[in-house]
């Protein structure tokens, strides 16, 4: 077991007992990563700040149930994702995301796409419809499987895949400047030789 894990175990024991210094040390150590997850999923910094506070309260409240099977960071990360999704679901009713994705093409126009050429992948992802963005972040960034995502979001694995591919295709357009190759041609005819 690494020194870091031993330190975590010690801090966790103290934190469970309500020791402020231990709580603060855990927060200081993991908030850069946990808060980044929250911000990534929430998109909006103000909203993320509110959610982050709830996330940390939830993490600390759940500490007595932490069994040490996974690293603390991994365990806390999972809570952060779940809690953030719950908050977003409550706030934005993201259960309607499948409908939103169908309206995607009407939301972002080609001209506004160009305005994002200088943006990072995270900022570009923020321009995706919420459902597609959530699936993209969970799958391609957080490493969730489609089965995990389906369970987490209450959708089918097929819907998860569909939204992911839509999201990737859109990001490809938004981030054409970041990767080699021509911007996907709009005049080309697409077919699918998939057999």
């Amino acid at each position: 077991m690494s020194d870091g894990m031993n330190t975590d175990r010690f801090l966790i024991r103290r934190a469970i007992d309500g020791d402020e210094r231990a709580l603060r040390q855990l927060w200081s150590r993991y908030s850069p990563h946990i808060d980044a997850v929250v911000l990534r999923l929430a998109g909006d910094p103000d909203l993320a700040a509110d959610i982050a506070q709830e996330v940390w309260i939830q993490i600390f409240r759940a500490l007595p149930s932490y069994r040490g099977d996974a690293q603390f960071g991994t365990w806390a990360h999972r809570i952060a994702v779940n809690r953030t999704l719950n908050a977003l679901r409550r706030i934005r009713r993201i259960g309607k995301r499948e409908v939103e994705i169908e309206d995607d093409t009407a939301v972002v126009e080609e001209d506004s796409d160009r305005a994002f050429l200088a943006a990072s992948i995270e900022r570009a992802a923020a321009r995706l419809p919420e459902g597609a963005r959530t699936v993209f972040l969970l799958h391609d960034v957080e490493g969730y499987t489609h089965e995990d995502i389906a369970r987490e979001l209450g959708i089918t694995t097929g819907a998860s895949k569909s939204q992911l591919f839509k999201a990737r295709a859109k990001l490809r357009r938004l981030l054409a400047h970041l990767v080699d190759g021509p911007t996907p041609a709009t005049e080309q005819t697409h077919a699918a030789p998939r057999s």
Partner: protein
Amino acid sequence: MLHLDPERLAALADDEPTADEATHLANCPACARERAAQRELLALALGERDAVLPRPLADWSTLSARLAEEGVLRRAGEEGMGGGTRSRFRVRPWMRAAAAVLLVLGGGIIGRATAGIPVGGSSDVASLGGSAVTDADSARAFVSLEDAVDLMRRSERDYRLAAAYVAAHDSASASRGGVDLYRARLAALDRVSDAALEAVNEAPADPVINQYLLSARTARAVTLQQLNNSLPAGVSLTSY
């Protein structure tokens, strides 16, 4: 030439193409570039997983206030989620038994220093009678484990006798600070005991850590007795 659908190309970032798709990709530079670009984007996305924020989203003062409200953070005198230090780390019967054994095995050495008694010093101790530990004893080569254990037993017994003697006769400390001095020492020893008890909980079989706990507790008992001695006649503390 017909090209692969953009969403299919997106799927192929981490999916294997069918035979027909593979043939197409091999013969269509545009689609091959698009697939490569999708893979590059996927790599960028994976890199985001390790992203960190330079500053937390929330500030600790706000968060700690909420944690205190929730009963997660324990302010002074409160109990945490685990029921507070004392209850969470209360001594279990087996720990008491282990502690007793370790006490017999010589928990007093460190306690001597804690109580201000010269370690290995024998003048006061010797005056109490019994076979006190001497420097010569400490330095000698033990011939067996039993020999060493026997010395530790005697050392521990001597320590307790010495501690009781100090508690009964140490008027110098009382005159220097009296009740306040003993109260401050008790409070400090409580903190030491708590920390040592937590360490024992972590490593119950570690004799060195147990010695710290036992020494702190012995010193506390001595100090409590000293405090009692310094109180007005007729006033006595049974706990502190």
